[in-house]
């Protein structure tokens, strides 16, 4: 039976509720459970999940719904009591800090008058208005939230450009300002390389590699993925270019993005021509000639972009980068041979399970060069779009950070459950040859990823000892997680850990080539 309790006017943020929801689902006698604010979207999710009750109709955004499904009616009171305690715990954790938490942006600014950046991660429908308030108060904004309309984005960015403010996002997950990693970002060295990115994990990968190479970041500005679309017209991309152009601490500029709309690319190119600082661009999937026209160095992969920037920063001849990468590819021969030996005949497909969208895109591009059919829930070609994201088909690369997976759930960089289940699912598939995955470290990400994923990999290896496990770790030694320990432990457990996402894709490409000969 399904029973619910409604708490009118009790607001909790979605992450707190997901944590509580997860804990409830683990309670004895609970078949299914959820705790959500009674928004229209959440109500429709409840309907799909079979947890909807008619009485929910009268409640709205500011009311809290607690729904529990159980076969043990007599236990429900106790379960709800436990839920109450969990909610109180979370609330107290907030209140217990002794200091007063302002209820509004205005009051926050009164308390901290030198505030210069608002980090906004509210639900999309509230986020735009809050961002505008922050801009109007003279604050730069990092807008983490998605589901903000493009009209709102344009309005915000127009205002920001007119007032010389930074308007990162919506849907900007990563930025490093003055050396401080914000939201989902890595702890990097300070240095003279500035990054502008319309892609969060792309930015994480590039900045982490630069830092691990011993170089550093001056500023890493996220624009949000839609900035380079025609409607937004690259407003923030271009104003960030202006900013880095004039920033005395930036000597090299790296641009990271999907291919911008041609009109936007034209604008960017024109701007680039006026910048004398060296520029490296990685527009994943774009024809590199388009950008070369502006005098920028075009990289094919995130890693190459990072290494080019490092080379320029250290005044090393940049041709050394491609030589180095070529040499390295050759050295993969041994790894490939070993892995192929392990894979039984009949196993022929790659299954890539990503938490970073751009990492998924990059892998698609690298594998496509192999002229394979690669299916994905982020396929650039409709022909290769997965009809069901939950089921792999031939070669499949899935981004588990896409909406179909994250509705009512934390992002896979935080919550590994869904991907773990998928790893086991792929291991049980007799056609799976390679399981490829990313581990993204840094602030915002799960603090103990090894503990989440290692038991699953061991279990999957038991199910299918003849599958190859390949991964790359995006992050730095300074990140809150222990990067080198994670890599060593994975390697000890038979996982091939590559130094970059591109390198991992490269190895997979070679393996596939070999087993399908």
């Amino acid at each position: 039976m399904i029973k619910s309790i409604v708490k009118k006017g009790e607001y909790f943020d979605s992450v707190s509720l997901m944590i509580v929801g997860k804990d409830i689902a683990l309670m004895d006698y609970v078949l299914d459970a959820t705790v959500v604010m009674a928004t229209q979207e959440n109500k429709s999710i409840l309907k799909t999940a079979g947890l909807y009750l008619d009485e929910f109709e009268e409640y709205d955004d500011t009311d809290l719904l607690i729904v529990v499904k159980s076969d043990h009616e007599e236990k429900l009171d106790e379960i709800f009591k436990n839920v109450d305690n969990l909610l109180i715990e979370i609330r107290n954790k907030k209140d217990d800090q002794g200091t007063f938490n302002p209820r509004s942006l205005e009051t926050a600014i009164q308390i901290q008058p030198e505030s210069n950046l608002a980090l906004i991660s509210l639900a999309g429908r509230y986020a735009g208005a809050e961002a505008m308030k922050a801009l109007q108060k003279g604050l730069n904004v990092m807008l983490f939230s998605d589901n903000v309309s493009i009209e709102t984005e344009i309005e915000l960015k127009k205002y920001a450009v007119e007032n010389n403010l930074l308007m990162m996002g919506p849907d900007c997950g990563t930025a490093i300002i003055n050396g401080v990693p914000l939201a989902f970002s890595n702890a990097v060295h300070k240095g003279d390389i500035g990054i502008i990115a319309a892609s969060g994990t792309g930015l994480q990968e590039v900045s982490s590699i630069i830092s691990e190479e011993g170089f550093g970041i001056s500023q890493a500005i996220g624009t949000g993925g839609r900035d380079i679309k025609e409607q937004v017209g690259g407003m923030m991309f271009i104003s960030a270019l202006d900013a880095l152009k004039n920033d005395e601490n930036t000597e090299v500029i790296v641009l990271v993005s999907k291919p911008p709309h041609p009109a936007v690319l034209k604008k960017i190119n024109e701007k680039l021509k006026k910048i004398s600082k060296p520029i490296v661009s990685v527009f994943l999937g774009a024809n590199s000639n388009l950008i070369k026209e502006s005098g920028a160095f075009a990289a094919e992969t995130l890693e190459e972009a990072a290494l080019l920037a490092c080379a320029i920063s250290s005044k090393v001849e940049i041709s050394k980068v491609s030589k180095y990468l070529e040499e390295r590819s050759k050295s993969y021969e041994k790894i490939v041979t070993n892995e192929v030996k392990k894979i039984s005949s009949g196993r022929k497909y790659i299954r890539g399970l990503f938490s970073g969208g751009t990492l998924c895109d990059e892998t698609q591009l690298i594998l496509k060069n192999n002229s394979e059919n690669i299916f994905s829930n982020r396929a650039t070609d409709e022909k290769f779009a997965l009809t069901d994201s939950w089921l792999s088909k031939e070669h499949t690369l899935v981004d588990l950070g896409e909406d179909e997976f994250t509705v009512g759930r934390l992002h896979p960089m935080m919550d590994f459950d869904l991907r773990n289940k998928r790893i086991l699912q792929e291991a049980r598939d007799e056609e799976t040859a390679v399981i490829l995955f990313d581990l993204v470290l840094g602030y915002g990400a799960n603090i103990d990823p090894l503990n989440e994923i290692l038991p699953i990999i061991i279990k999957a290896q038991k199910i299918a000892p003849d599958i190859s496990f390949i991964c790359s770790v995006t992050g730095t030694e300074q990140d809150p997680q222990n990067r080198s320990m994670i890599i060593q432990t994975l390697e000890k457990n038979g996982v091939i850990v590559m130094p970059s996402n591109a390198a991992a894709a490269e190895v997979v490409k070679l393996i596939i080539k070999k087993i399908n000969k």
Partner: protein
Amino acid sequence: MGFKKLFGEKIEVVNVGLDSFKDDLEKQGEKVVNVDWTPPANIDDKILQILKKNKAKIDIANEKVLEIILNGKPYLVGLDIARNVIPGMKENLLLHSGPPLTWDRVCGPMKGAMIGAIIYEGRAKNFEEAEKLAASGEFIFSPCHEHETVGPMAGVVSASMPVFVLKNEEYGNYAYCTLNEGLGKVLRYGAYDNETIERLKWIENELYPTLKNAVEYLGKIDLKNIIAQALHMGDEVHNRNRAATSLFYRTIAPAIVQTCDEKNVTAKVLNFINGNDHFFLNLSMPVGKVTLDAARNIDNSSIVVAMCRNGTDFGLQLAGTKDSWFVGEALVPDALYFPGFTKEDANPDIGDSSITETVGLGGFAIAASPAIVQFVGGTANDAVNYTLAMYEIAFGENNMYQIPYLNFRGTPTGIDVTKVVEKGLTPFIDTGVAHKDPGIGQVGAGVLSAPMDPFIKAAIGLAEQFKK
């Protein structure tokens, strides 16, 4: 140009949303303030747009209203019998707390109080007779607020009852309130038995004339001054009136001794005031009323001039919307219940005493009164946070009522309905809870949030004025 300024500075972040982002920044030693964000009220965006567009007009009106509130000079100038002084008072009129109400929707304690008043007036001998009269249409009911009056809990006032007479010396308007009966079986909680009626008679026959003479002897008593001092002594003058009652006692006692010839009566009156920590409540409430009434009918203002409950409905009025009531359901408080009682026993919120919050006292001044927060199960820190949160929805700060702990900052004053709906934050009301059955009395106390509904309606009501 560009973001040069930001790049050159140390970043200081305001975090709105996920707490973990704030924690990460703190771990890195960065400066960050977290906003404890709540969604705005569920209100049509068009209404918000209208209010936004007219913000300048609203603010000008609000400045005027705030000025009137701050300039108010509430004095106790005398005592009298309701029929002599309360505007519109009639023999068959019963005033009650909260917004307008019909007999069929009257809650338990209110019903008891009305029946008690009818018996007190000598119009009926017992419950049945009184109930019949009340239901017959013979008696008419009207909110205290519409008669320059306020009343705690049921707030019932009938023609023969003695009342305090307050005058706002700055603006010349008056306000009235009955004399506090103390605790136990009292009319304001719906008791109507002999003990209750006898006490009311004693108030009429001994307490009233004695106090009347004493006040006359003193001329007038500056109540604003007493409240300002009481706030420095741990009162917020809604749920805690111990200091204010003591200060009033110090003022009135010599005058009583001076003016009352009967030693016996003198002792009884002084003991009665001394024995009732809430005696001053029936003065702090009309202070709010007489102060706020002067600020009525200021076009365009979004400031609340009355906020009250009748045990069935919660109602409010704005300075900018004339006599309109904006009404929603009164909720059963999630309070701390006295031993032996639970939420099941509680009546929905009742009384005009939230006039104290409306004028910047009570829940808005609770940081001055940590003792009362402890009484309802909170900490001193909670008290401070309640008051700090109320600055979010207040238009201004008080010039006389101050919080010592906040470095004598003025209390948040003038509830701005536009801020309430925008921030999704309703006023905290520091209140007592009545039993749902007549005459049982107080069963709990707590700091409650007012319901959002009436504020949404008030915002709509104000927005409609601009459409005209």
